[in-house]
Structures are given as C-alpha cells and as structure tokens.
C-alpha cells in the first residue's frame, strides 16, 4: 500500500469534516438560537426535522439526497445550470450531504448552551445599550464557547466517520469522494486487511483525539 492510498482518503476526510464543520457552525447558529428562544408552534416541527438524521438510516437520507442533488433533482439541476457539473459524485455534493447528516450534532449542543444562557444576561446587555445583534455577539456567543466546542468536536467526528450517505451520494472516486471510511470498505472488499487495519487505526486515533480534545478543553474551562 503506497502513501497515496493512505493519505489521500485521510486528507479528503479531514477536508470534508473541516469544511462541513465550518459551514455547520454558520448554519446551525441561527437555527439553534431560534429553537432556544422561540415559542412558535412550528418549533416541534423544526426540532423533529433537525433531529431526523440521528434516527434515519444513512442510506435513506443518502437515497433522497441522491434524487434531490442529482442532475434531474431540484437542487441538482440548478447546480448543473450554474456550474455545468453534477452535484452527485462530487466533493461539493458530499459537503451538502454531510452538513445535513451532521446537522443535529451541531444544533443540539448549541441549543443547550443558548437555553442555559437564559434571558437574564441578554436583558442586562440591552439595558447597557447593546442592540439585539450586538448582545448576541458580545454576550451570548462568548458565554456559549463550551457549547461551540462540543458542537465543533461532534460535527467533525461525526462527519469523519460517515459512510452510508457518502457511498450513496458520492460513490467511490479517488481524490474526489473516496473518503477514509469508503477506502476502508474498499480495502476489506479486496481482502487487503493490512491496509484496512492501517486506515482504521488512523481513523480511530483521529476520532479519539477530536473527542478527547473536546472533553479536555471542557474540563479546563470548568476549572477556570
């Protein structure tokens, strides 16, 4: 097994997980804020929708995404018009799929953080002259750092380990969609157990480090 077959999928996975995490932090923040603040009757519907990827088999999610993102699908055809390439079996398509798949892991910790923050600090900030947006960035966000750490670690680790959705939407294109979990499956299928061992060990270590970093930082935060 040469270095490329090891590093290419690993690097692709890290890229995918990194970009997905960044996108998710931006997307999940307003959703989580709304869920924590709102008493709208649509709230349970949104809560359920966001949580669905946790219980849905990845293949089901992947199947629907394949249809929607495909060149004939609503989003896919628009993408083809825009860029001239298909979303399915591409890295961009994987990012979209991963964002949906990992959404609950980003939203949930943020909702918990925003809820525990409560109205009290916000009210104090308003009375001190901060607008609602200002109060969010200067008070709510810094007080929710631990929630963001959890959200980042969970989104990253979850995206790193996803398999079913990637296989359905992205397939197995080296350098484009063959992430580490697909590569492992590939090696096992071809009975290359030693390569599968190496890849698996790398994934294990990376996942461990990501979660450990989260718990470690979290604990340090508490002691401060």
């Amino acid at each position, binding site marked *: 097994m040469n270095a490329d077959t090891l590093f290419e999928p690993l690097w692709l996975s890290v890229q995918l997980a990194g970009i997905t995490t960044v996108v998710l932090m931006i997307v999940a923040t307003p959703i989580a804020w709304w869920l924590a603040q709102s008493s709208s009757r649509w709230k349970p519907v949104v809560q359920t929708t966001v949580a669905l990827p946790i219980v849905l088999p990845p293949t089901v999610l992947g199947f629907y995404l394949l249809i929607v993102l495909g060149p004939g699908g609503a989003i896919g055809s628009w993408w083809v018009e825009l860029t001239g390439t298909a979303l399915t079996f591409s890295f961009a398509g994987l990012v979209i799929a991963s964002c949906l798949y990992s959404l609950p892991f980003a939203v949930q910790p943020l909702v918990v953080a925003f809820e525990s923050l409560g109205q*009290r*600090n916000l*009210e*104090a*900030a*308003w*009375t*001190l*002259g*901060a*607008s*609602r947006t*200002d*109060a969010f960035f*200067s*008070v709510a966000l*810094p*007080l929710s*750092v631990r929630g963001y750490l959890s959200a980042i670690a969970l989104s990253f680790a979850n995206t790193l380990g996803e398999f079913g959705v990637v296989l359905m939407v992205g397939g197995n294109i080296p350098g484009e969609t063959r992430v580490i979990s697909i590569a492992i499956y590939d090696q096992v299928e071809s009975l290359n157990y030693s390569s599968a061992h190496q890849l698996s060990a790398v994934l294990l270590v990376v996942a461990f480090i990501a979660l450990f970093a989260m718990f470690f930082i979290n604990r340090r935060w508490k002691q*401060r």
Partner: protein
Amino acid sequence: METTVNAEALIQIKYALRRENFALDVDLDLPLRGIAGLFGASGAGKTSLLRCIAGLERPATGKLVVAGDVWQDNSSNTWRAVHQRDIGYVFQEPRLFAHLDVHGNIEFGLRRREHNGAPDIDHIIGLLGLERLLTRRIDELSGGEAQRVAIARALLCAPRFVLMDEPLASLDQKRKDDILPFLDRLRTEAEVPIIYVSHNIDEICRLCDYLVVLDDGRVVADGALQSVLVRMDVPLLSGEQAGSVIQGTAKSYDENDDLTCLHFSGGNLWVPGKANVDGAILRLRIRANDVSLCRTKPEQSTILNIVPAIVEAIQPDQGPSMLVRLVLGADRIVARVTRRSIRELDLQEGEEVFAQIKSVAVRHS
C-alpha cells in the same frame, strides 16, 4: 410641599398592562431628581412597572415621556427599544457577564452609549469602592461585591436615570449593611436620579426622597417621602411599618454623655453617638412604635426626648393599636399606641400632648 409641574423634570408614566392573573394600571408623574421609591408588597407590580419603563416589557396601552421626550406612545406608535433608552438598570441579581472581568463589565455600557461629558469613571469606581476589584474575575466576587459592580456598570453608561429593582433583596443582612452606605453616597454625590424598588420600608426611609406606594398594580399614594409616610390611610404604611421621617441639623455634641443634640422645627432631640456638627441637613427616622404620648410632661423619665405636640388625627390601626398623627412645629410624626390608652386618656384631635420619642435613626439627607 407643592412643586411646580415642569415636564423637563418629570418622568410621565401611563400604563395598562394585563397578564393572566395580574393587572398593572398606573398613571404617575415621577420627579427626575433624587431617589424615588416604589414601595409595595411582593406581587404589587413594582418590578413590572420598572420593566415597562426600561422597555423590557411592552404594555398594550401605555405612554412614557421622559423630560419631554416620548419613549413610548401607543396612540402615535412610538416605541424606543431597550438599548435606545438611556437608562441604567440594576437587577435583583447582579447579572454580570462571566466572560469579562470586573473592568470589562463596567466598561460594557460605557462603550455603547453616547455621552455628553464622559462620566467620571474613577469617581464612580471610588464611590462604590471597586478600586481593588477591577482585574478580578466575576466568579471571584462575593455577592455584595458583585452587586456593587452591577451598580457601577449601570451608573457608568451615563443614564438619564437608574432603575434599581430591589438591589439588596438577594443579599443577607451583613452584605446589605455593606452596600447601604454606598447607596447613601450615591444619593448625595452622584447626581443621577434613581427609581428604587423595595418592599423594605427601612431602605425606603433611609434612601428615598419621593415615595410611590403600589398595591395590586395600582398607585395608592405618591408624593414627597415625608408627607406620604404620615398619611395613615395607606394600609401598607401602617402596623409595624408605620413611622415618619423629618429633617434636622446637628447642633452640639456632649462629650461626657456621648450624645448629639439635633435641632428640628419642633424642638431638640438627643441621639446617641457623635453626628457631624457641620450644619448639614440630616434625615431623622422615627418609628411610630418608638413614640408614646403623655397628657402632662413627665418629670421623671428615662426617655430623653420629650417634645410638645398637637394631635392632628387619630385612626384605627391593626389589632389593638391606633395611629396618632402629631404636629411638632412644622413637622409631622406618627405614634402607634393602644386603643385602650386613647380611651383612658380621652385623647381628642386638636389637643396638646407630649410625645416621648424613644429612638431616632439619623442619616445624611
């Protein structure tokens, strides 16, 4: 004391707020100077009224005019959001921001408000005794220290007035005693008007110049502290709470007996300890329970302060007690005596008596 109505110096409030099991219905003018106390039992609507003024609560019908500026008027759809109202707000709990240190908290409002003439930061920090706490983290502060930081933070956003919602209620007596002197100094040294919510009559008598009594969402009495306290028709100001506040000056100090002689419109009063004999106006609090009445001047009594008075009004109080309003010179005080004593002395309105005053609490006015 009649004050001329000048919209520049007033907060004009008119609110009707309905909640599930509570209604606030208030039409009130507050002076924009000194400390105005909002007094009432818990659930009377004090906090709701304060939150309405701050804009944290939006009453269905309401009008709020501060020194001529309209902050809210539903008839013309005027609404100023919380952050656009130049107020300071001190909550029951300090509500400090844990991600900032003391200095960061104090600066928070300072950086966000436009100031005409920057507030003197060092002065306020000194006033509240925060010099040594500035670099502390919020979780390293005691309850009393945290509340002092919260007060400084509210003062330093250079507000037109400060709203204080029972700032001492969450503290034990010792911490309260730590903070009260700072509030005394605020009253005399920081010239910002304060609206002070409390259910504690002692705090009100000590700090406030103006008094509003709220009951069940309505204003039952309002006016200068001294005149509202002796009204006797306000149930919340009767019983154990009954008492009065008058003004006086320290005249002389008797070193041998460690007593200070205070002068007021109705004569002299001796109080223990040494008060500043610099002519400063002092605030004298006399509880109704500490005043007893005699037809003739007692010749032999351990009570030092016996002053002539005229009975102005007699009114039943709770249980076996009666409240008697007395005129002493230009001042009025209230005595709480038993029904039986009134009957046995055959006390009538307009009669001359002697008031024995057992204790007087003295503060700078």
